[in-house]
């Protein structure tokens, strides 16, 4: 919380009022400067542009402008058939492509009403949880960079590299996998994959702890993030927040638990919410903590999956259940899954005649989370603005689609 003196000649006065709340008074006595932040700026995580009205270091108002990475996903989706959309989905949230594919396939499978082989479900959950860890590592690392700490970023990327090579081994690609297909998966795990995943888990546990010591327990880091960008739970729900953002505001809401899909009901995991001891519930630090804890939970989910996963029978083909021609009955569906950034939903309309969807709307989690930016940035300092953008963890590929 910024403590600024109550000066007479400021056009914006920010006075502390209770815990983590400020009162902002404005008058017209001085000039505000318009500061254009982005689309090329180190901490807008891509091509977000913020038009900030600033009064000295205080941001009076920040208006986000989107669309610099708009690649017409929804228009493309109406032009290609259902399996052909999967690679486009990859390119939306390129940091968590597996999870995005998962969400899309769940939606289409709901429309098709088909059974998925049990082993494929495990494959899907394992790869998407691995990808969740990778995505959270990027989120935490770039957040550290936003706050000026460079080393945690490289630690995160070093560990992410192991996940990338695991997923590369499974799917053949490092970032944009096209691995989860409608009704199946493109390949079964190669031999020895389970052992390598096990090795990764034993390797990563101490590294996650090291990261926590280096960053999360750092006094400066806590000072920079605690009480910054507060979002009460009810407002967060009203803004449609989801994922770590919503859990950071103290709402115990996880689609894996609350709207279960795939094999998540069989798995034992915790929905991480901040306890209020280490952070103020709803601030940037809470959101960071939720991500940090979630990596642990994902590790344990992967371990459980490896234990329970049915062994591949002779001649097991993950593509076996894939329909020859994907042409759903006429109908509409809203399918969704828990992405590292929140709820990724697909609203798909099929006319029953064509192999292409009539409408495929992607409800992107970052897009919705970012919509609260304007309100959260009011009266913050420029460094806090950066801390808030970082805590939202946007991927502009998903925001602009």
């Amino acid at each position, binding site marked *: 919380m*910024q*403590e*600024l003196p109550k000066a007479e000649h400021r056009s914006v006065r920010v006075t502390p009022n209770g815990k983590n709340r400020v009162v902002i008074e404005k008058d017209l006595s001085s000039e505000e*400067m318009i*500061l*254009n932040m982005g689309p090329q*700026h*180190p*901490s807008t995580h891509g091509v977000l542009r913020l038009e900030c009205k600033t009064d000295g*270091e205080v941001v009076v108002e920040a208006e986000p402008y989107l669309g610099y990475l708009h690649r017409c996903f929804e228009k493309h989706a109406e032009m290609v058939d259902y399996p052909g959309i999967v690679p486009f989905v990859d390119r939306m949230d390129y940091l968590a492509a597996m999870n995005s594919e998962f969400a899309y396939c769940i939606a289409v499978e709901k429309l098709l009403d088909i059974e998925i082989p049990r082993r494929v479900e495990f494959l899907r959950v394992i790869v998407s949880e691995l990808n969740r860890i990778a995505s959270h590592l990027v989120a935490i690392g770039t957040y*550290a*960079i*936003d*706050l*000026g*700490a*460079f*080393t945690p970023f*490289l*630690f995160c990327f*070093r560990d992410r590299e192991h996940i990338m090579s695991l997923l590369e081994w499974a799917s053949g690609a490092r970032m944009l996998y096209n691995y989860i297909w409608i009704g199946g998966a493109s390949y079964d795990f190669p031999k020895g994959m389970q052992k390598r995943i096990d090795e990764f888990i034993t390797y990563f546990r101490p590294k996650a702890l090291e990261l926590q010591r*280096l*960053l999360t327990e*750092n006094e*400066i*880091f806590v*000072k*920079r993030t605690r009480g910054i960008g507060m979002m009460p739970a009810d407002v967060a729900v009203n803004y449609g927040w989801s994922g770590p953002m919503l859990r950071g505001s103290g709402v115990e809401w996880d689609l894996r638990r609350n709207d279960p899909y795939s094999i998540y009901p069989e798995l034992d995991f915790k929905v991480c919410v901040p306890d209020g001891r280490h952070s103020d519930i709803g601030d940037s630090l809470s959101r960071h903590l939720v991500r940090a804890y979630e990596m642990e939970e994902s590790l344990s989910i992967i371990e459980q999956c490896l234990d329970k996963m049915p062994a591949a029978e002779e001649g097991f083909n993950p593509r076996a259940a894939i329909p020859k021609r994907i042409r759903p009955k006429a109908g509409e569906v809203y399918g969704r899954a828990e992405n590292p950034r929140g709820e990724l939903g697909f609203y798909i309309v099929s006319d029953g005649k064509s192999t292409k969807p009539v409408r495929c709307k992607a409800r992107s989690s970052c897009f919705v989370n970012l919509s609260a930016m304007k309100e959260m940035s009011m009266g913050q*300092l*420029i*460094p*806090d603005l*950066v801390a808030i953008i970082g805590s939202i963890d946007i991927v502009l590929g998903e925001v602009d689609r």
Partner: protein
Amino acid sequence: MMLSNYFPIPMSMSLNSWSDALSQWYLFGLPLGLVVIAAIPLVFIALYALTYGVYGERKISAFMQDRLGPMEVGKWGILQTLADILKLLQKEDIVNTNADKFLFVVGPGILFVGSFMAFAVLPFGPAFIGADLNVGLFYAIGIVALEVVGILAAGWGSNNKWALYGAIRSVAQIVSYEIPAAIAILCGAMMAGTLSMQQFNILQQGEYGFLHFFLFQNPIAWLPFIIYFIASLAETNRAPFDIPEAESELVAGYFTEYSGMKFAVIFLAEYGSMFMVSAIISVVFLGGWNSPLPNIGSFALNDWTTGPVWGAAWIILKGFFFIFLQMWLRWTLPRLRVDQLMYVCWKVLTPFAFVAFVLTAVWEIYM
């Protein structure tokens, strides 16, 4: 001495003898010796910034971050910095259309001159000092403040809002941190009873090596030592106080618009002042060019490691040690916020500096 056979001017071990002799050296009536004296720190800054400053920092940060650092140019990437310099030299020298050309060009110059001029009073060993002023320390603190002018000129002249923010932050920061830094240094001056940089070193001489350093002579000296170290981080805009050039907030702060050699000059100035504050802290608290090794019986380690060349080695090593600390901190800590930075300065460092000041005075009177 062997060296005297090859050196054109008479050499001795006595205080300032090399620099005094050099300054007397005229060629065709021109004071060429003075030029040589001035050139030595310049060459030193350039060499040190190239080797330890840039290459060393990259390798040290790479070590801390579990990666290799530059590996391509030359063995272990040793020639990387030369390649960088070559690249910077070839770059187009861009001045924005709307920039204030005079300020834009003059800014990096003032910055560099500011950090370079302080080297005049740095004692490079017992026999060499640019100018043994009787107010050397005072001069060093004062001349560093010149950097503020350079930063403001660069930031304002760029006609860029980010640069302006960087410049304003930087000025506020440097001016504020001058106060705890100056008071902390004043504690050292009180212990020594002089402002001459060479006298500082002589007072900390002795056969027990490091035990004669002010830091170990006086338990209170630790307080101004730490205060000065923290304040010097802020004065040189190093992390965690690098908010004037906070790359994630202000793009690059006051040098956002600079490229090519002007950028390199700003870089050199930063590394120059890094060494400068590190040398000042070594002179005032850690014996400057004195050897930290004690004489132990017949092993006269202190005597063996004392001399003009040894002295230069010691002060440079001590300076490099503090620069290493600065790098270590930079690659470990996140950045403070502007208001937290000012909080640290005015509500923590300055009161403690005053406390240290009073305690040192009491100690000096009664102990």
